[in-house]
Structures are given as structure tokens and as C-alpha cells.
């Protein structure tokens, strides 16, 4: 966010000096993309992991900052849950996935991944800020932020204090979901953060037995939603076991899904470069 003018908390802010925080001086992060939705469980973390893989396939250096402090999913999705973060004189060192994606997540700092984090908002958003300024990300072409659900503390802190180049909004084909996603888009608009486009997840399902396309969610108002929000569609992803298995133990490779993701990544990079 450029300044205090567009800040929604301006009226009861005492400092009025812009919340933008300085990044760790050792870091050179070229582009920051946040993956958001507002709604829970639509696939933000899954999409974050897939986009990171897509960017990596383009030969870029990629990191993921897991901004979901109370429900972190990235360590599992990138199969780094057994690794631990270490510190160095330049800051905390993110762990690295097998294919070379750097990851910082609260669960990598916890002795036990099932331990709950029962913190109030200010402490939670403080942790997210630290993942930006106290972590030695080094040289990155893209840093992806996996946002928690909601438009509360973390969303506000991220939009106020980090230099976001663009946001990807994830939705599923349901009115009830798009209403909440619209809240997030309106928030980003208010705070002058560009929204790159929409990824519709769980668009349809293929029956593994009869190969029939099953529409779980009958809603077909996507095009209406896109035009109302004036946004482009970046990808439509099916609901399938393979994507669910991304969070599992096995190695993951799914050419069809990756092709769709690769196209989305191209659109995102075009948008950012313009």
C-alpha cells in the first residue's frame, strides 16, 4: 500500500506514518504475490504450492511465506514438515523443498505440528511481519504469500506493510463463496492492491468409474462474477484425488493440472511485468 490515504484503519490510527516495514537488508525479493480468498478451505494453500511449482518450472527462484499462523498447510504441501528452521547472522533461514522452493511457516518453528497457536490478532500479525523482515530469503524472483481465511488482522497487516505486486483470488463455484471472495476483492481495491485475477478451484469432478463430469456445485455465475469484479480468469481446476494427494506423502506429478497452472503462471507474469 502506497500511503495512509487508502488505509481503512486511518480514523483510529495514532501514528499516521505509513505501516510499510523495511525488509531484511540481506534480502532481494523481486516480486511478491499474495494468494487470498477470504473464504476458508477453497484451496488457497494448494494453489500457492502449485503456483510456486509453476514459477519454479520457469526457472525462477521461488519462496512461500505461510501467513496462516493458526492453520499452516504449506509444510505438508511441499513435504518439508520434518525440517526445522535455523537461524543465522542474517536472520532465520527458511527451509527448502526438494525441488528448491524456500518455505517459512510457523509449523516449522513448532516442536509438534499439532500444537495449537492460541494467539490474538496483534501477535499473529506480528509473526507474519517477522516472516518478512527477520527471515533471510536471499535472492528471490517471486515470493508467494499464502493467506489465512478472513479479512482480519493478517490480511490488513500484509496489505498495509508489505510491497504486494498483485493478488490471486481463489474461489469455488458457489454463490456463498463468491460473496465472501468479493469482500476480499473489495478490500484489496480499497487498499489499492492490484488483483491479478481469479482461480476457480473444484470447478467440477470426474467420476473415476464412469468418467462422467460431476458438477458438485451447480453455480454457473462465474462469468457474471468475473465481469462484475472486472477480473480475468487465470485457471479452472478440477476437484480430484490427485490434487488432494498433493498434501500426501508421495511424490506428486499431474501433467494436466500442471499445464493449467503453467498457463496461469504465464498470465500472472505478464500482468506483473506490465
Amino acid at each position: 500500500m502506497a500511503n495512509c490515504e487508502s488505509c481503512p484503519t486511518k480514523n483510529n490510527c495514532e501514528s499516521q506514518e505509513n505501516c510499510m516495514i523495511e525488509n531484511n537488508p540481506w534480502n532481494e525479493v523481486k516480486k511478491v504475490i499474495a494468494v487470498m480468498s477470504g473464504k476458508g478451505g477453497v484451496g488457497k494453500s494448494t494453489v500457492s504450492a502449485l503456483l510456486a511449482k509453476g514459477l519454479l518450472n520457469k526457472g525462477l527462484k521461488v519462496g512461500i511465506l505461510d501467513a496462516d499462523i493458526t492453520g499452516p498447510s504449506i509444510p505438508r504441501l511441499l513435504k518439508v514438515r520434518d525440517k526445522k528452521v535455523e537461524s543465522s547472522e542474517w536472520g532465520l533461514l527458511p527451509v527448502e523443498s526438494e525441488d528448491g522452493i524456500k518455505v517459512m511457516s510457523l509449523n516449522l518453528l513448532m516442536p509438534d505440528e499439532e500444537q495449537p497457536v492460541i494467539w490474538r490478532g496483534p501477535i499473529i500479525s506480528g509473526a507474519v511481519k517477522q516472516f518478512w523482515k527477520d527471515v533471510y530469503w536471499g535472492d528471490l524472483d517471486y515470493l508467494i504469500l499464502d493467506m489465512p481465511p478472513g479479512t482480519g488482522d493478517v490480511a490488513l497487516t500484509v496489505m498495509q506493510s508489505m510491497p504486494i505486486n498483485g493478488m490471486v483470488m481463489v474461489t469455488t463455484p458457489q454463490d456463498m463463496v463468491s460473496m465472501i471472495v468479493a469482500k476480499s476483492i473489495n478490500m484489496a481495491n480499497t487498499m489499492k492492491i492490484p488483483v491479478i485475477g481469479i482461480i476457480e478451484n473444484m470447478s467440477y469432478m470426474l467420476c473415476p468409474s464412469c468418467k462422467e463430469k460431476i458438477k458438485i456445485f451447480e453455480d454457473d455465475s462465474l462469468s457474471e462474477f468475473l465481469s462484475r469484479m472486472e477480473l480475468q480468469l487465470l485457471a479452472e481446476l478440477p476437484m480430484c484425488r490427485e490434487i488432494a494427494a498433493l498434501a500426501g506423502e508421495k511424490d506428486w506429478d499431474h501433467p494436466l493440472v500442471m499445464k493449467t497452472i503453467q498457463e496461469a503462471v504465464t498470465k500472472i507474469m505478464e500482468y506483473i511485468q506490465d
Partner: protein
Amino acid sequence: MVSSCSGCSTASTCSGSCPSVPELTEAQKLSNVKNVIAVMSGKGGVGKSSVTGMLAVSLMRQGYKVGVLDADVTGPSIPKIFGITAKADANENGIIPASTEKGIKLISLNLMIANEDDPVVWRGPIISQLVKQFWTDVIWGELDYLLIDLPPGTGDVPISVFQSIPVNGVITVSSPQQLANMVVRKAIKMANMYDANFYGLIENMAYVECPDCQKRIEIFGKPNGEKEAEFNEIPFLGELPIDPKLAELSDAGKIEEYNSEKFNQIIQKLINQSLGKGTKE
């Protein structure tokens, strides 16, 4: 319940000006709520709001007086699934909840803002203050059951609900998604720190039935709700399929017309095991 700051898990990092020194608050004075049930999961999108809605409808069908407190301030779903667009009113005594066609009382932030897709960009302390007001300032009147639909996470709202509202029981919603179990366990551990009483675990989205070949498709992997419940030492209430009809009726604001044999079994189990028949007059 936590009775002093020493029981609070944020005590070590608390600046001392804790906005909710743990203490239960009184409900609005014209209210008489017999039983408060919180629906939680920690994980997003597993179906907390849907389960809250179905539970409210089932209890109402059995003749109980039911209210729903939508504690998901930034992502409220309750008004939408009940098809309520009217705004909440207030009088000198407090806030008047909306009422559905069948008489379920509802309060939600979305009943207080101009457009349903206006964002609520508030920090935690303000959000939890509002949730507390939904308890202290809403004229619920006589209720057999007040259901609280919690947001995902283990942050401000669940903390405030457990600290300030006398929750009688917690229902946990999970799904067979691998990412869900770990986060759901976090939430259960959190509730345990507040000595919560668990009514049980419901595994939602366990499978889909193909409309063409009727095969059971376990899209997220093998359902494991019963094992999870056992692991967490809470009762298992049953599994629910992904049902396109539920999604469709929820979008249309007609969850009150939804009927599910599977859910009826769950509610029967819940009543037999935990709710008893004591509260109906």
C-alpha cells in the same frame, strides 16, 4: 474454563492490557439461553457453517427454540444459507435478531452492513468485541439452543468465545482431507485448554455419490473420522457425504428445506448421547 491469566496461553506474550481478562459475561438480560453449542474445526471450509445450519434446522423441527450466533465476522455465511437479507434491528434493550421463515433466530455481522460483499477490515480485538456483543446485547429471548458458528483458526474469536460465553458443548467438524486432520487436532487441543465438553466429531465431505453410476467416490481420500475421534478421545457422531443438493439449497438460501437421512442419524445420536431430552418444555 480458565479462571485467571495463568491459564491463558497468551499470558507470556500479553502486554498486560488484555481486553478480555478471562471471565464469563452475562447474556443480555431479557435472554434465557439453556444450552450453548459451539461448532468449530480450526480448518477452513470443512463445513462448520453448513453443519451449524443443518443442526439448527433439525433441532427446530424437533420443536426446540433455536438461535444461531454467527461468530465468523469477516466471512459470514449464516444469513446467506438461510436466505436472510433484512437488517437486524435494535431497541432500547438491545439488538433484535433476525428470524427465519421457520422461526430460527439469527445474528450476523452481515445483517448489520449495507452490502453483503462489503469487507470487514477489522483487527482482532474489535472483532472479538463484536462477537461478545452478540451474546451480551442481543435479545435472544427464550432459547433451548444457541449455536455458535465459529470462524476458522484458533485466534481471537474462539479465544473470546471460550473465555466469555458459557459454552456447554463443542461439536467439531472435520473432513477426510489430509490437511484438515492436523489443523482440526490443533483446534481440539485448544478447546481442551478451556476444559471444553465435546459433544462429538462429524466428518463432513466423506465421499460423493456419482449421480450416474451411484458409486461412492472418496475424492479426498479414505474417510477416517471415527479414528480421528478416537484419537482425540471425543465421541464420533457420523459422516456426511458431499451432497450437491445441500450446496444448491444453501446457495438459494433454503437450507431449511434440506433433509438428509444421514444427518438425521447424526442428530439422533447427538440427542441420545449428549443433549438428552431435558431441555424441552
